[in-house]
């Protein structure tokens, strides 16, 4: 069921690697991503934590980490791992940029100060930005038209990353990778807690896209405009033939209301969002977010609320989308709708070592999984495998447990 009449263009940047030290169960944790990646693993292995960490990175670029913690009903002491005695969270994020290559952002985040106390963005040995001890250095731009900034005192208070405080106008004067990385992070959206209750709610503000739970979806749909909503409608009609219209109207004080119009026996009926089925609302959320911008989109348990016959439609949509996508799933049906080459590149097995640290391994780099894939689908392999015992094979491959 191909959906590839997309005309969107990718953002020209991908998050390709992460190294994380001390964020919840991510202790000395390494993971690699492709354009479409999907996390699989037992409950409690740390799949959602990976999504949360990427959302945390995104929040660092926006500042206001305290508000982010409040939204999640966390405190700053919930961020660091309980499995170690460390407080600081360190990470290294590697991005691949078209025409530029590999850019690495390394930082140390102090939860007590709610900000990064050390940050470095670099290309190979070229340091594009360095922030430490409240001093900022920015490398001169490519054409040398702007002089470098050396050890400029950071006299203002901020939360998250210092790049949250550097405006587009300023960053645009320096190496283009800086602005691209910041924009990528700003446009990273986690829909990890999609809930029908939030999706049905009226909303006013579409800034920042759809929220974790689906809040703001009506406002985002409204902001997309009729033309983009009709593009979504055209695709949804292939699986919801009765659907005739996605109607979003503005009420008093800027509230937006969603209704859908369906046609039965040549008669049209309008249903308010509170009467719309969960699956359609979730699909609308996925489409709306993909149309909202060209950023990195994260979905937790993508199969939730979606009938198996629509799963192929959703998976094709995400795989063929120009966006970088990271999803998690427990569903062999989802995995069976991923082509082998995409699954080999993008399926990541998440598991916990005996010390409680989360680990990752490309699922089909495990020899037995690769052998099974030769005669069955990726979901069949997953469902056929004793995951509890799989760890022994992974250890035999030389993936050693890191020390605390």
């Amino acid at each position, binding site marked *: 069921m191909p959906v590839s009449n997309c005309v969107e263009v990718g953002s020209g940047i991908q998050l390709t690697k992460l190294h994380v030290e001390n964020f919840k169960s991510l202790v000395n944790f390494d993971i690699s991503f492709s354009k479409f990646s999907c996390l699989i693993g037992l409950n409690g292995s740390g799949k959602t934590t990976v999504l949360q960490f990427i959302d945390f990175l995104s929040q660092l670029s926006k500042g206001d980490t305290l508000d982010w913690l409040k939204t999640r009903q966390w405190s700053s002491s919930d961020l660091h791992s309980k499995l170690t005695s460390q407080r600081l969270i360190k990470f290294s994020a590697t991005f691949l940029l078209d025409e530029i290559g590999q850019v690495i952002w390394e930082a140390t985040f102090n939860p007590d100060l709610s900000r990064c106390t050390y940050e470095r963005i670099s290309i190979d040995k070229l340091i594009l930005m360095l922030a430490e001890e409240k001093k900022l250095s920015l490398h001169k731009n490519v054409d040398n038209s702007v002089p470098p900034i050396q050890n400029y005192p950071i006299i203002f208070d901020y939360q998250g990353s210092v790049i949250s405080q550097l405006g587009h106008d300023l960053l645009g004067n320096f190496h283009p990778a800086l602005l691209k990385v910041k924009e990528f992070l700003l446009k990273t959206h986690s829909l990890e807690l999609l809930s029908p209750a939030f999706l049905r709610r009226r909303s006013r503000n579409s800034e920042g896209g759809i929220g974790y739970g689906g809040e703001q979806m009506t406002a985002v749909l409204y902001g997309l405009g009729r033309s983009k909503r009709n593009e979504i409608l055209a695709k949804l009609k292939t699986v919801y033939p009765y659907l005739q219209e996605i109607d979003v109207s503005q009420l008093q004080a800027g509230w937006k209301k969603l209704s859908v119009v369906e046609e039965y026996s040549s008669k049209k009926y309008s249903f308010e969002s509170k009467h719309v089925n969960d699956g359609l609302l979730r699909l609308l959320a996925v489409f709306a977010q993909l149309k909202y911008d060209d950023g990195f989109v994260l979905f937790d348990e993508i199969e939730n609320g979606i009938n198996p016959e629509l799963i192929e439609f959703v998976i094709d949509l995400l795989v063929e989308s120009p966006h970088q996508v990271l999803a998690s799933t427990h569903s062999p049906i989802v995995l069976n709708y991923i082509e082998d080459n995409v699954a080999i590149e993008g399926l990541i097995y998440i598991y916990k070592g005996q010390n409680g640290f989360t680990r990752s391994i490309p699922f089909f780099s495990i*020899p*037995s999984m690769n052998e*099974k894939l*030769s*005669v*069955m689908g990726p979901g*069949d392999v997953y*469902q*056929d495998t004793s995951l509890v015992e799989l760890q022994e*094979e992974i250890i035999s491959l030389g993936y050693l447990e890191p020390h605390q």
Partner: protein
Amino acid sequence: MIIVFSGEGPTDLGSTYAGTFSPGPVALMINRWIFKRIGYSLLETNGANYYVCKATLADIAKQLPRAALLRGKKADRGGLSLETRYYFQNARALVAWIREQRLEQPAIALLFRDADGTASAGRGEWEHKVNSVIHGFHFENYPYGVAAIAKPKSEAWFLCAVRYNYANCQSIEASSSGNDASPNSLKQQLEAAMHQRFGCGCSRDDLNQIVSDGLIDEQEIDMQSLNLVKSQCNDVVDLIFGISPRA
């Protein structure tokens, strides 16, 4: 009568090169066992033996109409428990290959796999894997299938003869790992035993020679996994001859 083999590689059922089948030691053992029932050698009869390599089966398996592979209470009871689907799919693919050939005589489909091979890495029960192959043959309505699943791998059968002189060999099946990288692996044990007893290694040619000389004798080997192969071969031959219909 025809026999169609599919195995792991040269040191069990054999391999093909430029379309010619070069049997390995397990194929020789099975051929000799069947010879005693039918009075002629399938391996020495033109057009009576075929070998299908793993890659060919893999290509076929991916094209097979999807079976109801979703696990659940009923499916598990029917032979779809964990770590078995690889065997099920290969059995189905072997039947599909045989049917594609439109052979003019009944063909024994003999699927040999190690119980502890690459696809399992030590996981899963031997019995479930055997049942899964049988389930695959039944699923395709193929009556002449033989599930040859060595426990944990074919080296255990050879070791029984070469090192243990056929005595107490059931314990080799119970206590050995199929992992070639493990210390004191079956492969290492067999190499040492072959060297000590016959002054040779355990290449296909070495093993073929020892089997042909009768120094590895399938009749003498009393091991659960090989016994099951022998009894299935008997049943299938009886079925082809119309002696006793298979249940």
